[in-house]
Each structure stands twice: as C-alpha cells, then as structure tokens.
C-alpha cells in the first residue's frame, strides 16, 4: 500500500498549522525589514549630520581645494595661530581642524599637513581629504613644469579591460561579481535550507519517538515510507515558508521604503561613497548596461536546472541523515555528538565556495570539491555561473544521486531499528551494528 501522499499531507499540514511555525513565517520578514529599516535610518542620520571643518593653511598652497558640500562646510581661517584656531574650533563645536604649516616650496606641503579633531575621524573622511589634496598638488606641480590644465585633463585615462572567452563570449569584471552573487546566493540558500529544515525533520522524528506513536504508525507503513514522507512533507512546508518570506519581505521592503523614503538598497553598501567615486568615471548608464549584459551572459537555463537538481539532491542527502539522527536518539540534547559530522562537510563546502571558487572557479580544489557529494551541491552551484562543462555537472550529479540513495538506505536502516529503541544513547559502534540487523 502506498501511503506516501497521506503521510506527506499530514506532515505538511501539521507543520504549516503549527502556531510557532505560522508566527515565525510572518514575523521573520517583519523583524528583518524592521532591522534593515533601523540600520538604514540610522546610517542616514549619520550622513545627514552637518560637519564643519576648519582649514588653517599657513602655506597658502591649498587655497580653493575644498568646496562646501551638503554635509560638510569648509571654513578657511587667515591670520590665526594654531592654538587660537584649535580653541576656536573647540568652542564652535567644529568637527576638526586641517592645519598646513608654513612652508616655502610646493614639495614640502605633503609632509606638513595635520588634522586635529575631538574624535578620531572616519576613514572615508580622511581618505577623501587626502585624495583631493593629492590631486590638487599633482596638478599644481605639473602646471609648474609647464603642463596646461587642459593637457592634464586630456591625460586622464580610464582603463576597462574587456574580457572574452575563446568561444567568443564577452564578459567584464562586473560579470564576475554577478556570477559570484548568483553562485553565492544559491549556495547560501541551500546551506540555510538544510540547517533549518533538516533540524525540523530531526525534531519531528524525535517527537514521534517521545510520544510513543511510532510503533502504531509503523505497524501500518514501512519505515522508509514514513521517513520519505517526513522529508518531503517538511521540505514542502519549508518551501512554503521560504516563498512567503521572499514575497512578504519584498512587499514590505517596497512599502517601508515608500513610507519612510529610505533608500534601503543604499543601506547595504556602507562604502557607498568610495564606490561612487570609483564608478563616477563610467557613468550610471554604462553600469546599468553592463549589469544587464552580465545577467544575460549567465548560463540562465543551465543555472536554473542545475539549481533545482543540486538543491534537491543535496537537501535530500542531508535531510535523510538528519532523519537517521532523530531516529537514533531519544531527545534533542543527545543529538550533539552526531551533528558535528553532518555540519562539518556543510561548513567546509561553504568555505571552499567562498574562498576558493572566488579565487579560481576552475582550480583543482574547487573542481575536486564540486565532485565530492557532501560538498558538491554548494560548491557546484557556486561554480556553475562561471561555466562548468556539462559532463562535469552530470558526473557530479550522478555521484550525488548515488550517494543520496546510499544515504537513504543507510538512514532507513538506522531509522528502522532506532525508532523502536528507547532509553539508550547509542554510540557509533552500536549504530554500525544496527546496520546488520
């Protein structure tokens, strides 16, 4: 008798109807958005703060370098001594004092600049000031050597190396960032999914043991059916929760940013000022074009199909192990000793993905780990945006499926024996013996 649909339905409905599940489903995006909004709001407050920077330029070489901006007012002092200037800045609650000692030649200016302030100034502020002074001094020096301002402007060059693979596919640096983002999101999603819902499966197996219903159930259904039903039912509940999170999160994001007028996207880029500087040369339109190009260049179809298969394969592999752990123990505290061997390869996969794949997506380490079944789902998903030959993907998937089937067989063995064992905290040795029952 095939009871699988019935079991899946029950597992799904009990999960979805569970109060804490419902609360978490709807509360999590709210909390997330609230957090992001608060951070965004705070950083905006920070940006809005008006600063006054006083400049005491005794050398006279840095006249007209600084123009007032929305946030910063520059205040030039003449005929003040350093002490007087510092007292003045203190009394007027100014942000800081930029002081240039009196020097004779242009060459000495760079070594005689100091910034006085109450608190340590932010890195962006100082580097902003530095780069402006550098540019100004360079221009001045060049002008002194007889180069005209127009010539200097004309000498400014922006190099953007176009990349093209041998079979003619164009790409750019931005492409790589997009690829990394896609791979990273896919790998991270899988990682989170396994941890959250694998645990959920484990808990629901333990619950059946502690409530002692298990023997009633398995006098009606085969343990493997029960296990698969649990895994699939819980996963569907997980997909439901994830979907609600994404949709609700998206809607809330739009609503919140519309109401409060906060640009939430900006909040996630703290070094925005620097980025802007770097990108100024390219122009917004060029970036947008590159972005679209980059996304178009991704092997979308391959990515989607691979994502589906590796995600399902990897998730099922790990969740069957979680189910086996749940069956082997009596309560959640006993799970610790078995959790580590599951989490290790998972964490390793994420590390390999983050550090090695970025460095060299087709290097030995990345390639090897994208074949090892316990790390392949995460690592391969991160590699695929950079273009992985189909035979590699196929082989890796085959290995994954093979291991998954072995894991299910293994888990079912443990499960079959474990669910009827009470009161004992099993050792690895005992688990091994169960395989032979």
């Amino acid at each position: 008798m095939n009871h699988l649909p019935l079991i899946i339905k029950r597992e799904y409905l009990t999960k979805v109807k569970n109060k804490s599940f419902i609360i978490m489903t709807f509360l999590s995006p709210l909390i997330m958005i609230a957090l992001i909004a608060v951070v965004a709001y705070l950083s905006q407050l920070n940006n809005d703060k008006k600063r006054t920077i006083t400049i005491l330029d005794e050398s006279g070489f840095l006249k007209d370098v600084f123009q007032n901006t929305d946030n910063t007012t520059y205040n030039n002092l003449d005929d003040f001594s350093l002490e007087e200037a510092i007292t003045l800045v203190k009394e007027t609650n100014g942000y800081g004092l930029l002081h240039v000692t009196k020097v004779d030649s242009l060459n000495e200016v760079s070594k005689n600049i100091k910034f006085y302030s109450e608190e340590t100034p932010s890195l962006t502020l100082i580097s902003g000031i530095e780069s402006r002074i550098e540019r100004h001094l360079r221009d001045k020096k060049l002008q002194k050597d007889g180069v005209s301002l127009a010539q200097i402007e004309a000498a400014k060059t922006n190099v953007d190396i176009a990349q093209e693979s041998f079979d003619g596919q164009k790409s750019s640096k931005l492409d790589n960032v997009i690829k990394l983002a896609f791979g990273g999101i896919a790998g991270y999603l899988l990682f989170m999914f396994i941890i959250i819902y694998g645990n959920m499966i484990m808990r629901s197996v333990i619950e059946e043991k502690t409530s002692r219903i298990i023997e009633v159930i398995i006098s009606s259904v085969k343990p493997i059916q029960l296990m698969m039903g649990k895994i699939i039912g819980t996963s569907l509940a997980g997909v439901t929760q994830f979907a609600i999170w994404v949709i609700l999160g998206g809607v809330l994001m739009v609503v919140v940013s519309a109401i409060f007028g906060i640009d939430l996207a900006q909040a996630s880029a703290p070094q925005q000022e620097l980025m802007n500087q770097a990108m100024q040369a390219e122009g917004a339109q060029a970036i947008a074009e590159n972005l679209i190009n980059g996304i178009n260049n991704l092997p979308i179809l391959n990515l989607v199909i691979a994502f589906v298969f590796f995600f399902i394969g990897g998730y099922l592999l790990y969740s069957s192990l979680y189910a086996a752990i749940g069956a082997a123990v009596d309560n959640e505290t006993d799970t610790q000793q078995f959790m580590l061997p599951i989490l290790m390869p998972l964490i390793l996969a994420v590390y390999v993905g983050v550090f090695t794949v970025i460095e060299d997506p087709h290097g030995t380490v990345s390639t090897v780990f994208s074949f090892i079944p316990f790390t392949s789902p995460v690592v391969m998903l991160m590699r695929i945006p950079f273009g992985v030959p189909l035979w590699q993907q196929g082989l890796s998937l085959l290995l994954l499926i093979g291991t998954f089937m072995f894991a299910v067989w293994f888990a079912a063995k443990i499960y079959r024996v474990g669910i009827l064992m009470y009161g004992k905290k099993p050792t690895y040795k005992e688990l091994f013996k169960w395989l032979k029952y």
Partner: protein
Amino acid sequence: MNDLLVADSVSKSFGNFKALNEVSIAVPKGSIFGLLGPNGAGKTTLIRIINQITMPDEGTVQLDGQPLKSEHIRDIGYLPEERGLYKSMKVGEQALYLAQLKGMSKSEAKSRLKYWFDKLEIGDWWNKKIQELSKGQAQKIQFVVTVLHRPKLLIFDEPFSGFDPINANLIKDEILQLREEGATVIFSTHRMESVEELCDHIALIHKSNKILDGKLNDIKRQFKTNTFEVGLQSNNSASVIAEIKEKFEVLPATFKNLNDDIKLNVKIDQTTSSNDLLSFLASKAEVHHFVEVIPTANDIFIQTVKNN
C-alpha cells in the same frame, strides 16, 4: 483451516542476542490467545514480527493460510505496549489519519469513528487535542483506532495498563464482544487475573523459547496435583488428622470459610479417586468443604518459569 495465525519455528537475533529461538504458535480462529512470559522473554519481538515491523531471521508466519505480506496490515489491529498519539493533533484528525493508514477510505473511517465515539461516549472529544486529554482518555482513543478497521486479528500488548478499573472493564467487555463478532485476539500480558478471565489458549515464552502452549483448561489439567482442599468438623480433631496423614500426603491449607476445625490440603495418588477420598473423609468427620485445587494461571506461570 482452523488456525488464523500460524508461526512456524520463528527465530530472530539482534547481534549476538537471540530474541526468539524457533518459536512456533498456532492461534485458533475466534480464540483469545494469551501470549505470556516474563519481561524480556521475546513476546514483543514475536508480536513485531507478526506485524511485519521486523522480519524473522528464520521461520515463517502465515495469516489465514497465506504467508504474511504487506496487504495483511489491514487485517491486523495492533495496540502496542509503548503507545501514544500525536500530542498536538486533534483527536478526530488523528483517528482519521491512522484509519486511512490502515487502508480505510475517509468517509468509511468517519462513519465508523462516529459509531465508536458514540458507543464509548467520547463524541465531544473530536476537536480536542490529545494533550488536553487524560492518559486514560487517550488510551480509549487508541483502543478505538486499533479496532476501527475491523481487523481479523487483534493484538493487544498490555491493554489494561493505564486504565482505571471501570474503563478496564469497559475495554474488556469490548474485547469480548469483538471476539463474538468473529475477531481473533492475541493478548500479551503478565497480569494473570486477566488471562484467567479472558484467554482460552495460552503460550508461554521464556528466555526466547516457547516452553508451554495449549488450551488453558488442558494446561491446567496437566498441572493439577490431585490435591483437594478439605474442611472438616470433628470433636476429635487430632486423631482425625493423624488418621488422614497416615493414608495421604497432607499440606497445610489457608482457604477461608466459617469455623472449620480442620483445614487441610490433601494430595491423592493416581490410583485413588476423589470419591475414595471423600468417602474416607466422611467416615471420619463431617465434611464441610471439599474442592479440587485447580492451579491458577499465576501458579502455572511462576512454576514453569522457575523450572526452566
């Protein structure tokens, strides 16, 4: 074919531990079959094999003349000793789910459940969660779920544990009625008074071996010691006792009755009939009490287990 269930030399080992050693039982149709044995004897293992929860290493089990197969799941109703229900699930939903796992259709399960809930007067529990019920109440639900699909074979493992005497009686009556309706019952327990009350066949399993089985009455006959409880009244007790002791083996007796002077357990040998004993006693004193000592299931249990 008169036996509903036949287990033939069933063996099962867990690692080095032999849980069952060539155990054979035959459960006649329509009987209440007591599966007895001390803790850890192997009863639960045998029951799990019958329920196809575990597979035997050797031996076969036949239900209604056919080797056990997965379709038989719906012919068996099993109330395990370790029982429980999903705590946070509602009574009705849960009962429907478990019934459907046994192969009933949803509508059929619903009408049968209504019948049972009315019968046991628990209809208003339908929307309650198990965790809101008492242990005894949950046990009632569990009982209903076990018998709901009208199985040919009912297996109860310690069915009365957790019930108060009133509900235990109620369940006992239901079990007897189910037998009237044609069900066969396997009944595993170590509460001997319920064995006495309910079972007509028993099998005794001890240390993985079956050491005794058959009709309860046959076994009792087999275990009787030809001993009679005797209560006499006489003016000359001492000499009467001496005379009896001379002819028969006598043991002290502890039965209760009104003011008998002499209370004895008298054992007779194979050649003597009970009538011989009675007429001998009557000739010596006034007989007030004369009963053959029938071994109780408890006696048989303890005696057999000790001897093995």
